[in-house]
């Protein structure tokens, strides 16, 4: 295996820098989101990691991203659905310039293969990723079955820590189909990392990852 690359995020204008700061502050204010590290807290070194979380709200990617310490945040790219985030105007600008999101098509098999290729090239460049392996937003109560994407990432990069993150209450703050948020208190809980065990099969690994989210507060 080659030396791990140190990810250099694309340069950002002063305006975008400022806007990113405002977005982080606003996200934290509206969701009251507190980050709790049940697993080891992140050190000063910006280690490459993959964060995976339960998905129940459009706020999820934003909240997890904003919960990270700023040096990690700059090197962490949320993997987000192109059909929602790749839009002209503000949403597209936020996802490209501020979140530096990896936009992927969901759905078609061809899109799936291309999505995985985008993930591996982002990982090869040294970026950390935020994944929502349920694929689509759940009901906010139970944690659905995880899609194989997480397994492919784990298999491709068995040297990386996969950090489970349980996002709480975000589906109450901004549920499916609503535009206006209600400012309840959310939280993101970062659990102890896992890795693909040697010889571990896809189903076993994905169940273990799902159980890690359940252990942090999700419901089976």
């Amino acid at each position, binding site marked *: 295996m080659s030396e791990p690359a140190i990810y250099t995020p694309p340069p950002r204008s002063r305006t975008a820098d400022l806007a990113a700061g405002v977005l982080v502050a606003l996200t934290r204010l509206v969701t*009251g989101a*507190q980050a709790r590290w049940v697993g080891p807290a992140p050190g000063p070194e910006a280690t490459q990691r993959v964060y995976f979380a339960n998905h129940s709200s459009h706020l999820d990617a934003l909240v997890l991203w904003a919960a990270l310490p700023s040096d990690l945040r700059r090197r962490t790219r949320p993997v987000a659905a192109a059909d929602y985030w790749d839009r002209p105007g503000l949403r597209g600008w936020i996802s490209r310039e501020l979140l530096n999101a990896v936009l992927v098509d969901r759905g078609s098999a061809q899109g799936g293969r291309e999505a995985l290729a985008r993930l591996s090239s982002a990982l090869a460049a040294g970026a950390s990723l935020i994944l929502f392996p349920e694929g689509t937003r759940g009901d906010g109560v139970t944690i659905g079955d995880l899609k194989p994407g997480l397994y492919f990432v784990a298999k491709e990069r068995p040297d990386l820590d996969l950090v489970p993150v349980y996002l709480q209450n975000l589906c*109450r703050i901004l*549920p499916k189909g609503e535009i206006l948020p*209600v*400012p*309840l208190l959310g939280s993101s809980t970062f659990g102890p990392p896992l890795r693909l065990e040697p010889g571990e099969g896809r189903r076993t690994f994905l169940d273990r990852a799902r159980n890690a989210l359940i252990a942090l507060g999700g419901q089976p």
Partner: protein
Amino acid sequence: MNIVWDREIIALLAGIVGLLVLASAIGWVLAQRVQAESGQAVVANLNARVRAWWIMTAVFTAALATGGIGSVILFGLTSFIALREFITLTPTRRADHRTLFWAFFVFVPVQYWLVATHWYGLFVIFIPVYAFLFVPVRSVLAGDTEDFLARTAKIQWGLMVAVYCVSHAPALLMLDIPGYAGENAKLLLYLIVVVQLSDVLQYVFGKTLGRHKIVPKVSPNKTWEGTIGGIAAATLIGTALWWATPFSPWEAAGIALVVNLAGFAGGLCMSAIKRDRGIKDFGSLIQGHGGVLDRIDSLCFAAPLFFHLVRYLYT
């Protein structure tokens, strides 16, 4: 409204600062003396509480210094955060989303706008009549009947405790008391000082003398010794501060006692809610104290009683 900075309000504020200096000094000495690990945790929590008191006093005084409007905004924000803590820990359903949006962004601002404009007639009924009727209507339009009554009641109670009751504290500024014009800020300060000192003194008496629990299933920290000692001491202080109010010393004693009993009841009821939800604190915004609602639980019950006693007897 303008606030007259007379000698009495300065004396009240100076008294608070004096108490905080004393508390900080005691905390510092304890931090040097106490060696045992469990003791150190208690002292660390005590010092965090005292630091938070300094900040709360500074914010409150700054709000008071801007005149009435600053206090109204401060209590409005307090209500907003308290409601946020309450609803976060109270299960609501997807169908309540828009109802909650109204609660946060319409009912809270309107209630405090009524306080700011001294519109007493609507202030006292806006939430108990209009908001109470609106909440179930908005929820039923979303078409979900599961737990309908319970969901409605939770939102109504949140509005009642966190918004309606708390708004009676800054509403003291709207009262026209003959011979006391411009001095109402002292009433607000008096209420806060008596209620909060009662909390502190119940804690101190409970920690030092507490033996017999009152309602162990609800609040294991509330003892007869702590409660009676704390309420008696806070009532004495409330009596001794009669010069800052329109009350005579005996009247001040009676009113302080009522306020402290109401505050105790408030703390107990909010403890029951926390116990039912299986949590210790409503939030974590105030270091050492928990959430905003944990700090103002006794004020929620005391403020409306104090407001109406003063309004009925002195205006």
